[in-house]
């Protein structure tokens, strides 16, 4: 008897093949197939599944890596959600940093529309827009720390030439997040532009031509024809950007620590603390493994819920041209 899952997968196989199923060759093929996927499955089990299950256990303990882990039940979760204001500050900062997402999306959409015109020099511009995407976030953070230098940095020097006194940027609790937002928009522009460009190339030109003949203006053509084709990409960028914002780490570690080994970053006044940065602080600076694991699970559940919510909301306004 042929295995039903096998026949359904092979779909168009001739009946003759089905009857000869599970002869020596088929058994051999199945064994080799399983052998080829075995490393991937073993790697998943060893490096992800088992650690994930373990981390549930760890999150119910107090453990400093050296001594004995002590079972504390839900204490870590209760502490994180009701007693530790830094958890909420980190969430608040993340929400604030999300302000940059729609700005960045609008700018990259504009760039993509300009790139989609039939003009020369496109590959030149593309090369430039991609530079921040391929450069390491470490080098870029070191660079932007210098750009945001209050006295001699690029931005305040430019502001000064117009007679304006620039803020302290990373040194000020009010301006540290706008600084990170500016850097984030700059860094994501090329990547998002490329995604939008790919989507724009899928808009049928007949539709736009027909609309032009019917007397639709440029804005109407964009609003009613082009934009619906861009909603799946907008939706994708939105989800990945939100998830990415929770996980900002390198920029915080490189741009917000003062001189000296004791500085832990996330400042000033915790204004740049992100959730993953706080997780890292707890795990690898304070050695509170149980607490860090609990924060990891809270963040993981929030990110998972956000993704589901976005999918649910997305169904209402995303247009898929299938």
């Amino acid at each position: 008897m042929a295995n039903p899952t096998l026949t359904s997968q092979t779909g168009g196989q001739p009946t003759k093949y089905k009857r000869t199923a599970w002869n020596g060759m088929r058994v051999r093929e199945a064994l080799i197939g399983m052998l080829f996927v075995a490393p991937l499955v073993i790697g998943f089990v060893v490096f992800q599944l088992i650690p994930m299950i373990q981390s549930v256990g760890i999150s119910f303990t107090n453990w400093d890596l050296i001594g004995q882990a002590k079972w504390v039940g839900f204490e870590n979760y209760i502490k994180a959600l009701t007693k530790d204001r830094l958890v909420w500050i980190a969430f608040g900062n993340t929400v604030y940093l999300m302000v940059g997402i729609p700005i960045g999306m609008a700018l990259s959409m504009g760039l993509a529309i300009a790139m989609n015109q039939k003009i020369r020099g496109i590959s030149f511009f593309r090369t430039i827009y991609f530079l921040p995407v391929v450069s390491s976030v470490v080098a870029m953070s070191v660079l932007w720390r210098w750009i945001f230098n209050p006295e001699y940095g690029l931005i305040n020097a430019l502001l000064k030439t117009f007679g304006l006194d620039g803020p302290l940027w990373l040194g000020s609790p009010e301006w540290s997040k706008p600084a990170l937002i500016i850097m984030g928009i700059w860094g994501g522009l090329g990547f998002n532009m490329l995604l939008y460009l790919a989507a724009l190339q899928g808009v049928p030109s007949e539709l736009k031509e027909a609309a032009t003949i019917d007397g639709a203006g440029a804005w109407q053509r964009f609003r009613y024809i082009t934009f619906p084709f861009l909603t799946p990409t907008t939706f994708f960028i939105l989800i990945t950007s939100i998830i990415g914002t929770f996980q900002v780490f390198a920029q915080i570690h490189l741009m917000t620590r003062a001189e000296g080994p004791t500085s832990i970053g996330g400042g000033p006044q915790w204004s740049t603390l992100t959730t993953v940065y706080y997780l890292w602080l707890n795990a690898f600076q304070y050695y509170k493994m149980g607490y860090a694991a609990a924060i990891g699970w809270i963040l993981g559940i929030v990110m998972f819920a956000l993704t589901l919510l976005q999918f649910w909301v997305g169904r209402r306004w995303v247009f898929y041209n299938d």
Partner: protein
Amino acid sequence: MSITTSNRLTKWVSYGVLSLGGIFTLFPFLWMLSTSLKEDQYLLQFPPQWIPNPLNFQNYRDIWELIPLAQGFANSAFISITGTIGVLFASSLAGFAFAKLRFPFRDKLFVVLLATLMIPGAILLVPQFILYRDLDWIGTYNPLIIPSLFGAVYETFFFRQFFRGIPDDLIDSAKIDGASWFTIYLRIIVPLSRPVFATLAVLAFMWRWNDYMGPLIYLQDNNMQTVPVMISTFQSQYITQYGLLMAASVVSILPILVVYIFMQRYFVEGIAMTGLKG
């Protein structure tokens, strides 16, 4: 307004938008280069010197003395290249099996593996560290390389997509000639799939070369560190030496920029692919 004037207007507006975006993107890089070529006394000037005068290459000489950069490049290259080769080999073999071989629960297994892409990395940070500590891997390159040798779901997904487009006839005729499945992989699948290998290779290499948190957590000895962590350590010691810091940053991104300039097509395709599922 006639069609041609409107077209010309669109064209000039487009150039305007692209140029503004280009200046916004490029200016920080030019500032980095300019700073790295200035003597310290000219850094703290207003208005700033846009083009360094005199040109000063001393920073580029000094960083090699102050940072074990040559060692760092060797370390980064070793981790990135072994990891990339490992992940491409294991993932392409798995992708081949998922695309062309028939075995029980094949498609169900694939869907389960795909779903694991949704596991947030934040959950894994602590338990993975503990796993590597129990294995006595902390302070070695093992945590940064060995998991890659088992392949990755993400790469497997794209290999499977591509391999499904390869006609079954090619495989069937090789089977009639008595070729083993591994020979088919090596002699038919791989040669036909060079573009997807190149695309995934530049992506896999770039992720590993630019990784920061992994080496920061798992490596301890500064001489074993990768270039990004060395730059970070250097920054914490020379936090106000912007000339040196910019020179080090320029040097640290040069290798990937060279690869990018020469293999631009694959970078662009690869990065477009990461958004395909949208």
